[in-house]
Structures are given as structure tokens and as C-alpha cells.
């Protein structure tokens, strides 16, 4: 079974082809470049290297957010349209879950997070249970310092995997001290091969209603709800 995996939810762009649990080809960049320009040529490249045609893809796994709104939409639009037009199943995987798998063998808690500006993050916490990670704290859009307080009360070692550490390293060390372990730089890069591995045996989504998980309302929508008196993020 050939699986095409796509992640464009943050600055890193990664796409991979797997045959079952074997990685065939993967292409990953970590540059400030437009995913809309680079994604399709990258997919074309890895499929060529893998020696398979688009019609020979059996399933698509895509990172469905959270992350950059536009970034997530580029990946999800591409994945969703490919799945529709090739008539194959699509599975969405949380971008945070995929990132957390980089710390798979860590014995404590694994916290993955993406910067969401103004001190906020998209974050979740996982723990290994046999051959998979299971969520300990569900993904959230939250003030990072509040999130760290929550982690502190867990009284377990926490491995941090994420982006923009220059903004958050100090807070982590200050609030958690020795309880925190910050992963090495190479482990922060989400890889589509990992995404494909996570999603390969999961159920397919309903294609037409499949959309990104933004974890946050559009600003105008939030304000509109607030003026109607029932607003909350």
C-alpha cells in the first residue's frame, strides 16, 4: 500500500511516500519559502524517485493543524483534492501529534507546541503506550505560561518539541527547571514519514467535510460572537 504524507502546517514543509511501514522517499525543508510554490513540485519529485504514478497512491495522510492557517490550508487543500480526484481515502493527523512522535522513546511526558504569537501557543501533551503515543492533555490554544503551570502540576519529566524556542526557552527553564528537557534541534523538525506512519492504519475521514483543525476562531468571528454576548475562544 502506497501512502502519500503531507505536512505544511508550519515553516517546515515535509512530504513522503511510504509503502506500508517502509519509507520510500521523503523531502523536508526548513526555509522561509512559500509552501504553495514548493509543495506540488516536491510531491512530483518524491513520486518520481519512488517510481510510482499519482494513480498508484492508495491513501493520503495529511497534517490537519494546528499551525499557520494558510500553511495548513495549502496542505489540506492539496491532500483533500488529490484524495477526491483519485478517489482514495484521506486521514488527518494532528500536527502536534506528529511532532511529538519525534520524542517517541522518551520515558516521561512529551509536550509538542507551536508558537501562536503574543505569548500563546498551540500545544498538547502525549505519553508512550506500547506502539503509540496517547494524549495526556488535549491540544489547545493557550497562553504558554499558563500551559507550563499545568505541566508543572503533572510532576513528571517533560520533553519539549516545537518551534521558535528562542521565544520560549527561558520561560520553560524558569518555570519547570529540571522537570523540563528540551529536545535537540534535529528533533524539532516534523517529518512526513512519521506522519504517514501514524496515519497509515487510521480510519479515513469523510472527504467533503474534512477541514483543518485551526483550534482558534477567525478574529472577526470571535469579535462578532463577543458582541453577541456568547463569545469565548
Amino acid at each position: 500500500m502506497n501512502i502519500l504524507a503531507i505536512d505544511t502546517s508550519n515553516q517546515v514543509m515535509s512530504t513522503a511516500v511510504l509503502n506500508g511501514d517502509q519509507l520510500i522517499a521523503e523531502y523536508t525543508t526548513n526555509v522561509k519559502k512559500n509552501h504553495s510554490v514548493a509543495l506540488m513540485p516536491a510531491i512530483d519529485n518524491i513520486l518520481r524517485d519512488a517510481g510510482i504514478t499519482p494513480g498508484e497512491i492508495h491513501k493520503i495522510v495529511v497534517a490537519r493543524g494546528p499551525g499557520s492557517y494558510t500553511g495548513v490550508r495549502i496542505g489540506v487543500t492539496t491532500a483533500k483534492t488529490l484524495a477526491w480526484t483519485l478517489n482514495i481515502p484521506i486521514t488527518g493527523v494532528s500536527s502536534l501529534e506528529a511532532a511529538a512522535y519525534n520524542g517517541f522513546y522518551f520515558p516521561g511526558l512529551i509536550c509538542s507546541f507551536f508558537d501562536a504569537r503574543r505569548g500563546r501557543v498551540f500545544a498538547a501533551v502525549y505519553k508512550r503506550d506500547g506502539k503509540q503515543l496517547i494524549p495526556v492533555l488535549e491540544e489547545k490554544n493557550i497562553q504558554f505560561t499558563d500551559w507550563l503551570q499545568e505541566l508543572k502540576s503533572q510532576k513528571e519529566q517533560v520533553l519539549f518539541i516545537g518551534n521558535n524556542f528562542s521565544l520560549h526557552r527561558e520561560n520553560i527553564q524558569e518555570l519547570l527547571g529540571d522537570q523540563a528537557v528540551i529536545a535537540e534541534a534535529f528533533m524539532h523538525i516534523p517529518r512526513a514519514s512519521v506522519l504517514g506512519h501514524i496515519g497509515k492504519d487510521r480510519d479515513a475521514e469523510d472527504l467533503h467535510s474534512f477541514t483543518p483543525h485551526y483550534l482558534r476562531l477567525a478574529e472577526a468571528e470571535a469579535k462578532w460572537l463577543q458582541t453577541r454576548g456568547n463569545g469565548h475562544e
Partner: protein
Amino acid sequence: MKQKTDQYILAIETSCDETAVAIVKNGRDLLSNVVASQIESHKRFGGVVPEIASRHHIEQITIVLEEALQKAGVTMEEIDAIAVTEGPGLVGALLIGVNAAKAIAYAHQKPLVGVHHIAGHIYANRLEKEFSFPLLSLVVSGGHTELIVMKEHGDFQVIGETRDDAAGEAYDKVAKALDLPYPGGPYIDRLAAEGEATIDFPRAWLEEGSYDFSFSGLKTAVMNTLHNARQKGKTLKKEDIAASFQESVIDVLVTKTYRAAREYEVKQLIVAGGVAANKGLRAGLKEQFAGEAIDVLIPPLSLCTDNAAMIAAAGSVAFEQGHRAGLDLNANPSLSLERYAKRSKR
């Protein structure tokens, strides 16, 4: 049945707040034209919110694609090329269409053609009647007020454009000042029909011979009139304000269009864009061009507003002229029509 010589184009348009897919045969024969409008959602905000538009596009895109293929009774194998609006428009909204188009083109190894949104508005008319060159096109919409001369297919010479607000933008702003719902254009048009042009609002003719437009002065004049009346405790009839405003807009549009049509000795006048639905403008142009040997084309309502049939019609010609986009095609929110024209003429 598809003949070998027939050409089928599948087109996608997502530049603003409509998710649209159409299939057109031989550049002129409309097989399906599906439009999912988001207007109800944006009404809450009094205008299109880009982030919300992008979110709706991704919810709708495959549904609209499927419906367009089903209605046309065409399979993907029969499609010769995928056309898509690459600009101008809202970047996040354009990106959904562009990436969906690339996915389809890649999956089926079909040629991909990028289309300029305004070229699309002009070509909407070709679904009704064949072009005869040279022709003049007046494009009026929420984002555009332009006069464009075409000497042949794929050739666009912009001879006049707005220096500030687009005509449709002025309509929306004046409508807001009159407490009319969004989008205000159709409401003003309706009110204007019931009122009388009792107020002499300014007309911006600009320098002698210029085909450019300016509507911000007019908009300000309307605001000032409303403000002054309010201060003096006078109430003005909304109908009369609407009629006076509309008369000023249409006077300038019709006069400049007529002068350009004569100077460039055009055979056809093509009206395009959302404001082409305005009854006052339609009537004004018909009256001015009555008795002239110039054929005035105004598309039916469904082809005036944003749709993908127009993108297919323009894409059909671009495809025939050999224009191809690569898998690295990007959304281009400020794509210029003349740069686009040069590219498709190659």
C-alpha cells in the same frame, strides 16, 4: 459524446467570496457553472473577511468540483486542461483554488492554465456572443473600474483605470452611510429607480482626454451632504440621494466609455464585472449607444458576478494560445492584466 476536436476546460475560481467551478466546451459552450456563495456569512461583518473566506473555500471546494462534473456529465479523462484564477484577489482565497487546480492537474497529468480574474470577467461575454475585434470592455466591480481595449484574443490594453475607489466600492460605502445592508450596490440601484436626482454631486472628469476614473471625491460629497443635512435637522430622501449618486457615477462611466469607443473605433462594447448588473448603468449605456454601429454586450446576471465559467472561457483561449502554468504556480494577489496579456501572447 466528445468529438476528437472538442475542447473541454474545467475551471476554478476562488478569488473572493464565491467558490466556483465550471466546465466549458470549445470556449463558448457552458456545460456546468456551480457557484457556492458565502455572502450570508460575510453579511455579519459588513464586508468580506479574508480569513473567513479562505475557511469557507476549503469547506466547499471538493463539493463544488463534484457537482460541476456531475452536472456537465463529463469525466476527468475528457477534460483537456484545468484553468484557475491566479489573481488578482484575496491571497488566502486564491490559494485554495490554485492548490486544488494543481492537485487535479497533477493527479491526471493534465495541462494547467493560470487565468487573470478580469480577463475572465471580459470573457464571460463570449459565452453569449462571439467577439469581434477591436472591442472595448468596461469592467466595473467592487475592486475594479477599468476600460480595456482588445485588438485580438489574449490581448488586453488598459486605457483607463480608477485612481482611488472602484465604482463598486463607492456604492458599498455610500450604501453603508445610508444604513443599507451589505452588499449595498443592488439596494442603491433599487432606491435610485424610485428617487429623483435632485442633488448635483460632482463628476470627476480628470485631465482632458483621460480615461481614468476617480470616485472618492463623489463618495466624500455624499457623506458631507448627509452630515450637513443632519446638523441642520433636515431629512433627505434616501431615494433622492441614491438617484443623485448613481446619476453621477453612471454619467462619468457612460461618457468616458462612449468617447473611448469612438476613439478606438471598436466594433463591440463589452460590459463586465458585478456592477454590470446595475440597471441604471445598463439603461444608460443602451441609451448612449443607441443608433451606433457598436454592438453592446452585457452578460446575464449569473455571469456578471464572480463565477468559474468566465475563467474557463478565458482559459480556453489561453490554452489554445499555448499558455501553460507549472506545478509551482502561485496565487498572485496583485497580478497585472497587461503583464498577464504579454505572457499569454507568447
